[in-house]
């Protein structure tokens, strides 16, 4: 139920006073509400759940996480 899917914003528009957008998930398009992502831009990735964008994906953080995970040393426990 709380699963979400990251997708890429391909259009942004206004419907009845709220910000909506078309989000692309690997070739599949679907409308999502972007009303609480006020700095959303076309090309940004968002995490969408039940048709609502919960947050913008942070690419810097994603890279940093992968880098840190790839560096975990088996035996060292801080």
């Amino acid at each position, binding site marked *: 139920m*709380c699963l979400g899917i990251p997708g890429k914003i391909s259009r942004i528009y206004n419907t009845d006073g709220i910000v909506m957008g078309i989000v692309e998930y690997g070739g599949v398009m679907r409308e999502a509400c972007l009303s609480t992502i006020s700095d959303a831009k076309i090309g940004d990735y968002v995490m969408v759940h039940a048709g609502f964008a919960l947050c913008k994906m942070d690419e810097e953080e994603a890279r940093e996480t992968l880098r840190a995970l790839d560096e975990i040393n088996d035996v060292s426990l801080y």
Partner: protein
Amino acid sequence: MNYIEDFRNSDRAKKLLHSIISIISKKWVIMEMCGGQTHSMMKFGLDQLLPQQLEIVHGPGCPVCVTALELIDKAILIAKKRDVIFTSYGDMLRVPGSNSDLFSVRATGGDVRVVYSALDALQIARENPDKEVVFFGIGFETTAPANGISVLQAKRLGIQNYSVLVSQVRVPPAMELILSSSENRVQGFLAAGHVCSVMGTKEYVPISNRYHIPISITGFEPVDLLAGIFETLSMLETNIWGVKNAYSRSVSSEGNVEAQKMLDQLFEPCDRNWRGIGLIPMSGWKLRSDFQEFDAEIRFNVADVQSQESEKCIAGLILQGLKKPADCGAFQRECTPQNPLGATMVSSEGACAAYYKYRR
């Protein structure tokens, strides 16, 4: 950056698994909070690869499972009314009420429709001005903004034939209930990633400090789950506690502040019943008085229903980490996904359904 594949990379997962195996020195019990995590863990077979000393128990973070029985009964009552179009996320249709379910209401002529989002339900209301359209607003903090915006829009646009049966629940009070029980076995948590995308990580710091319990904010892909487990286990093994964020690409410490503002405008905290568990103080949200005209419980006056749970179902104990599905006498016998006795057998994220599907 591929936000899915990079976090399903099997070399990365194997290395993390190896690290987990190499640091564990004794038995520990970790609870994953979210039903989506339960499901992912089994789908990718992680539970069978983790060291035996590590016991993973499944928390109450499946809204389909914890939505109170009396709310299901109220939903059924409302959906049976003539001139009502009852809309819901698909998973709720097969959840057993005391005597029936929403599917049966539909089979006997009720207008029950599955929607993908609450805004779709609002659209149905606009297209059917001569009908009352009701949306079953279930879910945790993750779903609250998606459900809530439909009420804001209904108010803004003056749509009067729309209302919501509100069943919003919140994670932190449930964690506290589990930790404060004298029977508690949970020593560390994987907190629910998308709940934290909305609410941030700050709510968990006081809980970690009060109960000296390590918490890792955890995502849903195999690498995310293993990273969350590794972080929590590292804290347990070194006898420290705190809140670590293993899902920082979609969770910040403040969360989505704009969404929180919207939630605060719409909702206020209230006590809520959790199916199988009972009343958890201040564990829910209800609509503020400014929005009461959109509250379906008030509009349809369904305050008093008598609800009766199946006597065999032990889902409440499973959702608190005290029992496993196989401990239930009805599991795979009277209770199957085709004929569920309890809500945890319905949703694919319910622990009983996940154990059934993946034959654990």
